[in-house]
């Protein structure tokens, strides 16, 4: 059972208080009538299913009733952050990848430093 930090209540609460509402940041096209059938179908039916970082929309259903976003790792189920509607996530698949590359680079540097010392 997830332990979720509601960014509006500013409290950790049990998953039982929340409902998941699918992928976050799906914006309804401003002018639906000018969408092609394909574009409208994409908006309606197609969702990402990543292995890794995923942004999800949740609602604090039996708490403050506010909708907010969760950034969750779909393999470990770790929740990396929660943030309010309209905010942009600070942890994304790209940011995690960048950090991994940076970490690998710094390890490589320290290894080569060790080699120099040796």
């Amino acid at each position, binding site marked *: *059972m*997830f*332990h979720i930090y509601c960014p509006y209540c500013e409290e950790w609460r*049990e998953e039982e208080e929340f*409902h998941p*509402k699918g992928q976050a940041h799906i*914006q*309804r096209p401003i*002018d*639906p*009538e000018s*969408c092609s*059938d394909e574009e*409208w*179908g994409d*908006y*309606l*039916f197609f969702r990402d299913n990543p292995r890794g970082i995923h942004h999800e*929309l949740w*609602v604090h*259903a039996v708490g403050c*009733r*506010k*909708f907010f976003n969760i950034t969750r790792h779909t*393999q*470990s*189920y*770790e*929740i990396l952050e929660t943030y309010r*509607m*309209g905010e942009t996530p600070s942890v994304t698949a790209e940011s995690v990848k960048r950090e991994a590359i940076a970490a690998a680079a710094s390890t490589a540097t320290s290894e080569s430093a060790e080699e120099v010392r040796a």
Partner: protein
Amino acid sequence: MRQSNRLKQGGRIERSRRLTFTFNGNSYEGYAGDTLASALLANGVDIVNRSFKYSRPRGIVAAGAEEPNAVVQLGSSEPSQVPNVRATQQALYEGLSARSTNGWPNVQRDLMGLIGKLGGKMMPPGFYYKTFMAPASMWLTYERYIRKSAGLGRSPGESDPDIYDHLNRHCDVLVIGAGPAGLTSALVAARSGARVIVCDEQEEMGGSLLASHQALDERPAADWLSDVLAEMEANANVTLLARTTANGYHDHNFVTLHERRTEHLADTAPMVNGRRQARSRLHRVRAGRVIMATGAHERPLVYAGNDIPGNFLAGAISTYIRRYAVVPGNKLVLSTANDDGYRAALDWLDAGREVVAVADARQAPDGALVEAVRSRGVRIIDGAAVIEAHGENRVSSVRVAPIDAAAFRISGEIETLKCDTVASSGGFSPVIHLASHTGSRPSWNDDIIGFIPSLPKGMLAAGSAQGLHELGAVLRDGAAVGAAAVRDLALDAAEVEVPQVASLHESAAMALFQVPHDKPTLRAPKQFVDLQNDVTAAAIELATREGFESIEHVKRYTAMGFGTDQGKLGNINGMAIAARCLGRTIPEVGTTVFRPNYTPVTFGAIVGRHCRELFDPERYTALHQWHVENGAEFEEVGQWKRPWYFPRTAKGKRETMHEAVARECLAVREGVGILDASTLGKIDIQGPDAREFLGRVYTNKWAKLPVGRVRYGLMCKDDGMVMDDGTTSCLAEDHFLMTTSTGGAAAVLEWLELWHQTEWPELDLTMSSVTDHWATMTVTGPKARDLLAELTDIDLDRDAFRFMDWREGKVAGVPARVFRISFTGELAYEINVQARAAMHVWKALFAHGEKYDLTPYGTETMHVLRAEKGFIIAGQDTDGSVTPEDLGMQWAVGYDKPFSWIGKRALTRPDTVRKDRKQLVGLRPKDASVVLEEGAQIVLDPQHAIPMPMVGHVTSSYYSPTLESGFALAVVKGGHERMGETVYLPMADGKVHEAEIVSTIFVDPKGERQNV
């Protein structure tokens, strides 16, 4: 002889408290402090069960949770039956009554055993699937007998008298396992000021210290143990839970602990002050850090005949002797691949019994324990192992041979030794189950010859659970892990002096799993890997030969590690055998994952108090008591209890539902009826942009609805499919009251909030549920106006208070909102008052209604009346694939509204404009007495070969007393163009009903009656 295997002294048992118990109907004696298993062994009971598949006699093998054979049925009466109890984990109490779960007619003489003996070779893995697969229709018959012969206990046939509790708990550090590692880590955490919970599955805390030879700080281990427990007991921040198993590790450090509070006392919980005590508690713990100090399980060696009673784990022998003063035999042969196994030999010697020989798979072992045994004159055979045990119902001899483990063959002379007991030790497997409950896969470690856990975030492992072995190292690790856990939580770690333990010289352990035999595995006598599921080494070899290469497939094909056992004893041996057969290493073969629960949990504990009347919340309207007093039958609508119909009793005869509904329907059509409609969802919407918002979420127009008027609205999802419907009234320019279906109320509010909060936060409005605040009473029928006029100051004149108007005033002296809307097709007033005034108004209506024969009606009559009018119920006549146009409700669609409302764009998608979509129509059965089945499939040609093309199905169907005929609503492909056509409904019993497609409006097509 009584307790013939009990030693004269020693053990942690209370010899002054004798307890009697029965096993398979025979009476025995034991002591307080015994487990059922130790008491059975004390009494020399060899056979405790018959095996699952081959019905072979089985005895006790282990002393803890890993016991695969001694799984018993507990309970002296029918309601107290508990299946799946491990005798090794069941404390003995006075009057305990247990039976073997398997064996017919009994475990001593088992008929299935003959089949197992004769047919052993004929029962390969997949036997049941391969043998009983044809004809498929017979499977259910086969299955009944297979299950009877392969039972693992049965559920009680009567209701459980016990009660069970759930507790929610929070702590900084949860320590699972109170052995040396768990206790030192808990001690550090507690002294650091953390809130600590320590749980341990055994009757007593202490783990391996309870049976340890080793001194801690030159004192007996038991003394150190009682000091530590006393200190923690005195600390208010520490909760010690003995008899408590951590059964499941779930996401984000959520752990379920099952605390057995009374199972050591009696088979049902005792009464205290007239109240039954809770039998067990399920603690739902959210922990800052979880320390897994679950220890290790010893691995048995896999050799022929290793399931004959008398084969034990080496460590279990030590536990029975040291903790329970029970020595389960006379002549012991030990087969080991490590030094630890020698402890069993030493304990056996100390108990004054004979150790025939030790077969050590290693060459020239010289560890301290080895030398201790050698110095007592025991013969140690180097480089050898027990390759086969003989015996019927108890081991009588073993065959020992030198082995070449790498080449997997016998490398010398086989000799036969007389003995009655075999102890084996293949090494230790860390108990990593909890760490893998959320999906982490453990990794193989060659140094410890076992899997070590991959830890989820927030979990730490200490001691043997991560492969440590030597007691001193385990204690130091516990302290270090405890300190790491509190530092993670930003606390300062307290200093704890770890007790000193003399370290012993140890010779390296050897990796040995299956012992080679002089015959090849497939032809050798059975070598068991998983005793509980009767999986042999040959079965695994056969599975790999048949092409099952993935360990997950091998597991499912052979059933290794299934069921209540979860592979505690056999999994690693099985993987090692699969690896050998496939020519791979164990890490290449990989491991299966463990799932909750670690040991079986009774359903009562899972359910807790959420049973019977507390199973699901029940919602009552303010008028519920009146309905009860007036004999209503109730229907469940979501959590609501709604009156279904009100049967009357005349001349001692109670109406059937059919009779009551017919009477109620006619009362509404001809006189006046009243419905408690309070459960209708009600949402109060306020704000300057409320009207704009309604225009976006409903399919129809709201821009011009004046104050005082009501409008019906359809709500779609953005895919154009109808989701809910209801009426919304304009209370003021910036104030509306929306109604929703009873079942959809919460979901509709969440849906509206979703759009407001995520897409249109700029719209200024607020929404609030007022369902429970207002009671709703629908007074309907030709005489409704006459009745209401007697009680209200509102002008009910047909032109002053028109259909689809609402008015505010007083009803029975109470402030009320009255809505002239109709779900029956008759003149109708929906009276809304504050819920607390509802009973007063309702009774006043009945006081005045007597002369009009005011008739209460329930949901069944409501359904008949609305269906006669073709009014839909969202979720019954629609199913998420029906558009407003499919319903023929274009009149409720504002095609030219300026904002592209939710669902509009989808209505022009190619799929939604198909001509052959299923469309809502009426059905009139040709035989008026037929009431079609809801859900019945509709076909055009009943002569068509099966499978017939199905063109639709019945969504609502009733008998109409007004039409004196059955009638139905249905969805039919292209139905709107098929008026007057005949369709057919083939039923399961072979009958075919004939029906005509008609308009959905069966009564008063012009809608004159509601407008009077």
